[in-house]
């Protein structure tokens, strides 16, 4: 039974995209991944409207003070097992805005992060590779203890 469930989790990862103060270039690259050239739906990946429906939370942008509490709240509202991907150099290390007064630190100071995708902006191929790594992590979760 758990084999089937793990297979199912690998085959239909649904994303929820959270833009915490990014220059929206990473978001556009994420949408690029959905459009014809890189079509991620062939791997079963969909971008969902509500965090309740999603397994993977994709966070772009350096988390500013305004976005930090909302990011925590959205993270809470997702149902387990869930994975967090920090997309773009702003999300991984705060990027060029690291020492701005409005910074609440890169994503991993706000919520636990599983996969980091560097690049400004990371190419769609890099995003797909990141999601694949996230799936391997999901597989390792197996019994869904997280």
């Amino acid at each position, binding site marked *: 039974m758990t084999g*089937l469930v793990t297979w*199912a989790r690998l*085959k*239909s990862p649904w994303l929820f995209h959270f833009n915490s103060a990014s220059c929206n270039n990473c978001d556009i690259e994420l949408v690029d991944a959905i459009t014809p050239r890189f079509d991620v*739906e062939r791997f079963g990946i969909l971008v969902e409207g509500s965090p309740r*429906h999603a*397994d993977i939370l994709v966070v772009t942008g350096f988390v500013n003070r305004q976005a930090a509490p909302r990011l925590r709240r959205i993270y809470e509202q997702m*149902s*387990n097992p869930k994975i967090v991907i920090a997309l773009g150099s702003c999300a991984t290390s705060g990027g060029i805005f690291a020492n701005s007064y409005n910074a609440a630190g890169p994503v991993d100071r706000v919520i636990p992060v599983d996969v980091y995708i560097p690049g400004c902006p990371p190419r769609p191929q890099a995003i797909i590779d990141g999601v694949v790594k996230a799936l391997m992590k999901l597989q390792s979760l197996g019994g869904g203890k997280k």
Partner: protein
Amino acid sequence: MDWLYIVKLIVYVVLVGVVAAPNIGLFFTWMHRKLGARMQWRIGPPLYQPWADVVKLLSKETIIPATAHKTTFLVAPPLAVASAVLAIVIMTPFAPPVQVYHISFTGDVIVVLYLLTMPAIAAMIGGSASGNPYASVGVQREMTLIFAYELPFIMAALVPILKVGSLRLADIIGYQLEHGPILFSVSGFLACVVLIMVMQAKLTLPPFDIPDAKTEIVAGPYTEYSGASLALFKLAHAVMLFAVPLFISDLCLGGLIVRSLSDPVTLTLDIVLIVVKLVVLVLIAAFIRFFNPRIRIDQAFGMFWKTATVIAVVALALSFVPLPYF
């Protein structure tokens, strides 16, 4: 009490309701998504995708928001699946008219009519039980959509009933076996057009996917659902994707009937006919879905109460004309 009959009934219900209906429904969902992707220059999901989605959702955690009323919130999804499955069981697909399984009874058209609206009612009760403002807007729009398409739907469904003169699906299918599908008569054709428009709205596919418009109100009544209850709603939607085309094919296209199990020629012909009928209806729904934007609720209301009702009235009037091809 006739125990044999009850055993036969249970086997039949399990066979059709539990095994066939959800799987065929999920297959049609896959067809829709693959076709859509193909029309958008994309490759589209593999065949097993809908099954993977349902199993994954089943294994996820169900969250109940603080503002929700727990029991109603949890009862709504199984209610939706139950009524969709019940509708299919009563419509007895693939049943040769003579077989004993055929439990069609007078007035089963009306019962099926009601059962096909039940999943929408379950979604509305679930949505309003979740206490989310987007869900409430979704419930309001779903309700407006329901009684927008109710009038044309009952009028269009009435055309075959009046033509055949009975409220029993078996009689309607029997009539179409002799006189050829009702689609070939003018009033039948108009009724079929209206029924297809209503099918698009009943399955909430664009241009009528107003209740769960992703870009306006997040996910409508389904916003707060997660895990197993969301899986059941998706399953109910898949079963409806099989139930509504089946209902239309029973009314207008002569039903999915295997005339005789004995001689192979008619058997293969019938099976091909069944596949063609269902697939054509699903294809039409897919084409309408992928080549139209979403229209507003008042435009949908106007479209149903003006154009669709006029066509249905004309079809109804024509069906009273005793000429052969009317």
